[in-house]
């Protein structure tokens, strides 16, 4: 079951629990920031790198065991840093995300180049504990830190023509050595319908396990769309584009018959490589049944009422 905590339901005592408060202090110290004003800022960030200060715990969560942090940070599909699961951790060690900028373009009233903090600063960080289901039939449960994508997009004021949102990953073969081989059509691209992008479950994530996002998991900022296969949750985002037409997406370009634009987790839609009926939860040996929309059917099924999901897979 999904538990969604309403902001007004959180007792005062829970807002900043003691260990968290202390952790925040550590972050502050690490970031080298001293000063009263900054204590109120959830983006306790120095210029060097994005550090996360205060956040609301478990704004949305599930009653399932959280995947070991070690597993979630050492078993990654992030082809920009290599195609083996262990590659991203090894090859992203020196990846720097300083002065990260995001280009916003297309059908919106506030296009432009935004510094990561400027784009995110107005919003408070929430912890969201979501299932992550990879198309390769394995899954994890991850405590993300992020803000609803809808909040960020609304601040950019999309026009009435904005029916889709496209995202782009950094393209820099020097910093991302996996891009030196053309295993995919770089830069990595993903996209959502505007309704999917505005859905309250969709977040832009900047951290996990109470910490800043590790490089191998998509630092400094990535998408998390929990009811879709993992490859939809694009990492290391440098571009957001509102458009009237459906954007092309990387895996769809690579193998259109296997990876559709929607790519919702769906045990009923067969995939030529992996049965999607079941999945292996990382940390377990045997497989478990895969849930429709990865267990988020109650929240998102209505988005697809008029859509034949076997055609629009």
């Amino acid at each position, binding site marked *: 079951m999904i538990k969604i905590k309403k902001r007004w339901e959180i007792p005062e005592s829970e807002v900043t629990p003691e260990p968290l408060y202390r952790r925040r202090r550590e972050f502050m110290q690490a970031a080298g920031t001293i000063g009263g004003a900054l204590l109120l800022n959830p983006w306790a960030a120095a210029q060097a790198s994005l550090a996360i200060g205060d956040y609301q715990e478990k704004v949305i969560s599930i009653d399932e065991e959280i995947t070991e942090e070690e597993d979630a940070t*050492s078993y990654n599909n992030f082809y920009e840093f290599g195609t083996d699961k262990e590659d991203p951790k090894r090859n992203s060690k020196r990846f720097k995300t300083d002065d990260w900028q995001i280009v916003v373009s297309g059908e919106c009233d506030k296009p432009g180049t935004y510094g990561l903090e400027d784009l995110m600063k107005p919003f408070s960080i929430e912890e969201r504990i979501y299932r992550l289901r990879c198309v390769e039939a394995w899954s994890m449960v991850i405590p993300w830190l992020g803000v609803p994508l809808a909040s960020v997009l609304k601040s950019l004021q999309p026009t009435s023509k904005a029916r889709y949102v496209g995202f782009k990953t950094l393209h820099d073969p020097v910093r991302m050595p996996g891009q030196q081989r053309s295993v995919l059509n770089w830069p990595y691209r993903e996209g959502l319908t505007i309704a999917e992008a505005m859905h309250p479950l969709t977040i832009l994530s900047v951290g996990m396990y109470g910490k800043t996002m590790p490089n191998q998991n998509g630092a400094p900022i990535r998408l998390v769309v929990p009811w879709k296969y993992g490859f939809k949750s694009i990492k290391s985002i440098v571009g957001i584009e509102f458009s009237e037409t459906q954007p092309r997406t990387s895996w769809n370009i690579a193998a259109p018959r296997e990876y559709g634009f929607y790519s919702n987790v769906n045990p009923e839609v067969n995939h*030529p490589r992996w049965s999607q009926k079941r999945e*292996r939860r990382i940390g377990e040996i045997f497989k478990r049944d895969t849930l429709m929309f990865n267990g988020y059917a109650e929240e998102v099924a209505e988005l697809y009422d008029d859509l034949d999901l076997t055609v629009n897979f």
Partner: protein
Amino acid sequence: MWLKSVWAKPLLHLLCLLPFTGLLWAAFNGGLGANPVEKLTHETGAWTLRLLLLTLSLSPLRQWTGQAAWIRFRRITGLYTFFYLSCHFLIWFVADHSLDPGAMIEDIVERPYITLGFSAFLLMIPLAATSNQFMIRKLGRKWKSLHQLVYLIILLAVLHFIWLVKADYLEPGIYAIIAVILLAHRVGPIKRIGIKSAPVVR
């Protein structure tokens, strides 16, 4: 010549068992990463393919080096191929399908790369079963025809790997090139040399 040394075969046994003991050791020491089942499946599959290619390269090695002794090792490498293949199959059947034959058959029917892999496994069984001296004598000339199935098996195995890969074809590509070279070798030169290619099994 070291090829004919009495130590050659025991050494080969040790070498063939090395990946297996390595995996076993890793399994008990948390060395298989976040998804140990996937790791074991991939590793046993890769070693099956490597040993199969090694087995198929012994006959060309005999011709290129003029050393008939290479052929002595063919049964050992062939049987270890079948050993790793059996591990590969069992891990998949037990951990991926929880020993459910229905689920397994569904997977075989629905996914072409599994159809190929499973066919290769089935075809390997009679080869392993007839690799002993008794069956070689009993089958006579038919033994050689039967064991030429290995050419089909290597094609199935390489295609199985290529087909399951998502985007990075480097490793299966390397195996495919080696397999093509080894197979091409048999189409041309062997026929001309003729008699020399008669089976020598010890």
